[in-house]
């Protein structure tokens, strides 16, 4: 993510804040919506089968092209980008919408921020197995009796990194499309927890991006970086 690739596998980027529940959000969501209605005309209702109490369930607002979205409930708010145009633009947009939200509902203390990048790397099996080493500089140290002939994989790592932690999900998935597309999901969620101040939100997103970017650049192989540089 240090450079803008022409053909990146990124399908969604998210910046989220979580804060102590604020009941004003439940009954004044229309006030916030009035300020962003023109940009996010599509309203998606909270899921009915969520195990969470109703006020904790998210509303999702999206633009007409479904390139960006905002989710919120009484204790969290997140900005989503499905069409990523670089970190500078993402950061500028995320901070703008989150600041608007925080000002409206007087959110000053937050207890978690998270920057998430979800990548779907399309793969083709080789000799029936997932050639993970072709796409990712990542593997498992195993005894000889466990060869690297992976038919399926699902790994979640929580890594202490800098000021926060990075959750990395690496998962094989077959999409339910006609072409039976197979992908490796590479999902990063860098988060900071504790007594955080909303006024420092810009420094939080910067530090989150710095660590996530470095891990992304290091984990992607040169072969797949060349594919990311191909015209889509």
């Amino acid at each position, binding site marked *: 993510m240090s450079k803008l690739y022409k053909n990146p596998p990124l399908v*969604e980027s998210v910046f989220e804040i979580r804060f102590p529940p604020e009941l004003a959000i439940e009954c004044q969501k229309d006030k916030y919506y009035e300020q962003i209605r023109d940009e996010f005309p599509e309203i998606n209702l909270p899921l009915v089968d969520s195990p969470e109490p109703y006020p904790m369930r*998210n509303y999702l607002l999206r633009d007409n092209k479904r390139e960006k979205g905002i989710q919120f409930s009484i204790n969290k708010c997140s900005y*989503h980008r499905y069409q990523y145009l670089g970190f500078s633009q993402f950061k500028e947009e995320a901070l703008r919408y989150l600041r608007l939200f925080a000002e409206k509902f007087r959110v000053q203390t937050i207890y978690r921020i998270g920057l998430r990048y979800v990548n779907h790397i399309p793969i083709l099996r080789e000799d029936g197995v997932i050639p993970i080493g072709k796409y990712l500089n990542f593997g498992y140290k195993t005894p000889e009796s466990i060869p690297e002939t992976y038919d399926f994989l699902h790994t979640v790592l929580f890594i202490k990194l800098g000021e926060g932690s990075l959750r990395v999900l690496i998962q094989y998935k077959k999409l339910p499309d006609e072409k039976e597309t197979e992908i490796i999901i590479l999902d990063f969620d860098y988060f900071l927890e504790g007594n955080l101040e909303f006024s420092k939100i810009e420094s939080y997103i910067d530090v989150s991006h710095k660590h996530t970017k470095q891990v992304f650049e290091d984990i992607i192989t040169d072969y797949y970086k060349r594919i990311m540089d191909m015209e889509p």
Partner: protein
Amino acid sequence: MPIDKLSSTQRYVPILQQVLDIFNRKLSLDMLDNASDYLKFAEDFKKEAFPATEPDEDKTLNKYYFNELRSGEGKIIFREDYLLEVELSKENDLFFFCNDKFNIFGSGYTKEEALKDFAEFFIHDYLSYKKTSVKQLTQDAQHLLDEYESIIGAFEPA
């Protein structure tokens, strides 16, 4: 589904479900006329009502890129700065890998079979031109061989 595209009935189904949930704790669900129909409707509705944070799966992944191809005849390694673009399609139950530039395609009932078929054709085609003397090649064939040579860094026979 966006709320403005929902019928008024659909808009209230989640609320109705909440009411029914509460009601169901106190009364038998059988006492409610059509309650099961409403619940089924709510069940269908919720599947498409809110895709959470998942983006639409509208990115059709059609193109794949290769830095090498293998077949029974050997292995082609493309030049370092080149990746062969191959397009995937599916008709009925058959997968097709196709490259328009070299007019080569491979098919199979699985993607692996189709790719294997494609690689066999590609390598065989290249070797056929390569083994033919230049004098016997037509101008078009000579041009195609030049195209192959411009992207292939090495060939390792099996």
